[in-house]
């Protein structure tokens, strides 16, 4: 039998790597990359825990919807990044501080 009990550990590692990328990197596209990694970690968890209930496939269906939402998020996020880059000539989130009081 395959060692499925390691999959949640891998998912936790991927999620934390995504969190560190979102916090640390100074580029909007890197932030999007980190968010994709976090969504992927949650998908891996859903598949791993669905192994416990072979008759059900709620986990698999839910992963499908998470993937759909991830696609929408990536498309809209990239559109906003392109627009902001056009306006500010910068893709660094910290430099876009016009609304800062």
């Amino acid at each position, binding site marked *: 039998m395959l060692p499925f009990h390691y999959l949640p550990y891998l998912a936790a590692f991927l999620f934390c790597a995504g969190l560190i990328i979102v*916090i640390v990197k100074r580029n909007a596209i890197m932030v999007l990359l980190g968010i994709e*990694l976090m969504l992927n970690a949650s998908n891996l968890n859903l598949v791993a*825990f669905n192994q416990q209930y072979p008759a059900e496939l709620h986990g698999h269906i839910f992963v499908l919807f998470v993937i759909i939402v991830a696609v*929408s998020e990536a498309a809209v996020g990239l559109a906003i990044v392109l627009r902001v880059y056009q306006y500010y000539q910068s893709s660094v989130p910290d430099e876009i501080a016009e609304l800062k009081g």
Partner: protein
Amino acid sequence: MNGVTILFYFFIILAGVSAGAIVFSKNVFKSALFLLVSLLSVAALYVLSFAEFLAVAQILIYAGGILVIIIFGIMLTTKISGRPLVVENTHILSGGIAGISLFILLTRFLPSLPSGATSGLQPEDIRVIGLAIFSRYPVPFEVAGLLLLIALVGAAVVTSHLKSKA
């Protein structure tokens, strides 16, 4: 330990290492390629976890769609001259503390999965998922389609006023 188990460990290590490489990489483009490696090894893990349909969807949508969009975005938002693709890091201490403490918390309180979980679905995996979508989950399916349409129109509207620069 047979060949499939070795493959399983190999893909777990490959996904983890390439995710870690994104954190330490300074180049946006290389990070996107590392993300591609990570996503493809997760797809391989889906295959080994008897979720073939999700593996195909992962490869088609993540590796084929999202990565292409991201690389497209990298090309459009970096200057051609100078040091275009280099990213600096900020908040290294707080980010590291947040990530590492969350990892310790998550792994500390994981319920212990029994290792020998049975195989999930029968060989007719894709047929079963298709029947489930259209018989038990039709409303979420329609809502997901509507969400995709809204996202498509929204992305098109947001970028439609871009002035094309020579």
